């Protein structure tokens, strides 16, 4: 599963980076990169995001 970002909403603040226990998220100045291979679906980043730019990738 994992998480995905809505780039139009994201304000590239890094708050999600700070709470990810698996270090999946990195901020490249104006763009976050998510490495879902390490994601444990804890949803901390989704809760944390001040603008609601992150969402779960639902199983197909």
């Amino acid at each position, binding site marked *: 599963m994992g998480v995905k970002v809505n780039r139009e909403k994201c304000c590239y603040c890094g708050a999600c980076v*700070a*709470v990810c226990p698996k270090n999946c998220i*990195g901020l490249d100045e104006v763009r976050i990169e998510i490495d879902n291979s390490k994601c444990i679906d804890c949803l901390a980043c989704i809760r944390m995001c001040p603008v609601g730019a992150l969402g779960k990738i639902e199983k197909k």
Partner: protein
Amino acid sequence: MEEYGVIIIGAGPAGLSAAAKLAERKINALVLDRKQEIGCPKRCAEGLGLGWFRRLGLKPSKEWAVMPIYGAALYSPLGKSVVLKAKKVAGYVLERKMFEKALAIDAVKKGAKIRLKSNVKSARRENGNVVIDVNELGEIKQYSAPLIIACDGIDSRIARMLGLDTTNKLPDVDSGFQYELTGIDGYDEKLLHLYFGNEISPRGYCWIFPKRRGTANVGIGIAGYAEKTAKYYLDKFIASHPNLSKGSIIEVNSGGIPVGGFLEKMHSDNLLIAGDAAHQVDPIHGGGIGISMEAGALAAEVASEAVAKNDFSEKFLGKYTQKWYALRGNQLKKRLKGRHLLEKLSDADFEYLADSITADDVLKIASGDLDKKAKFILFAKKLVKRPGLVKIMMKYL
């Protein structure tokens, strides 16, 4: 590969303050930041109390100390207010973009080097040094230094790359969102305005920090675990204040605030951590500009001793963590409890407090001068009808 005496990662208040102090001591210091403009975008309401000007030796300049502030007004959910106003200036709202540029210019004048659009992608220890891979305007470069000062803000990935877990736990971070609004009015521009209540801002507050005539930072910080987003609450707050909703947005700011306490260990071999990266923020109001600058300067002090002794071991660098707790951390730790108070108060409690507590009482409590007994007498007298609330206040203040 370029080699430096000390490499600082992050050109925020922590990093720039460390750079100036290292340069003053003639240490070959390089500051790297992934941004393309120092101080931009801001993730901050830009308030700085006068005490910090004194402690940091800063003189307010018209260029960046744009609004003198004389106190604060605290509002209950129904809008009752307690006003704390002094005759003299109590602090300033800054234009952080200009402030940080001034800090950068000062550091460079003293001899530091700064490079922007330099994203540190990885860091590893190699033969007693740290080697970092940096993407600098699309080009991959390598730098090395025996000591890194990680001032990389809330992301705090540099320390994690070097083996120290600096992840923030969700209950320990506030989720922040803010608009810089212009064309607004209806509030005293000499005061900071703070709005409390569980419906308004769970575990936090909404704020208006006046910046210029008719212009202010209007923002919110809420518990990181709150179900709805900070933006949701802020939009609701603004919509319910016609004097604000008529304004226009000239900046959108988002950010996390590490309010839940400090790293136990802010160092390891070849590494010091300062500022938001070390969770060095006031747990009650979330202010971190002054604290991170002070910590950056302290890190630089220990770094220069390490350079003089050529000792970059975890054992030696432990001095920094120790000194920081003695200087600031132990005092801030006491304030951690105050944050939990906001979690415990109901909206009815806020109303009752606004009715019974005066500005004088708030100042007395905030001064930290009251001992347990004096506090109890004050609360018991003021909150006669709510013994339960007295208990909560005693536990968390």
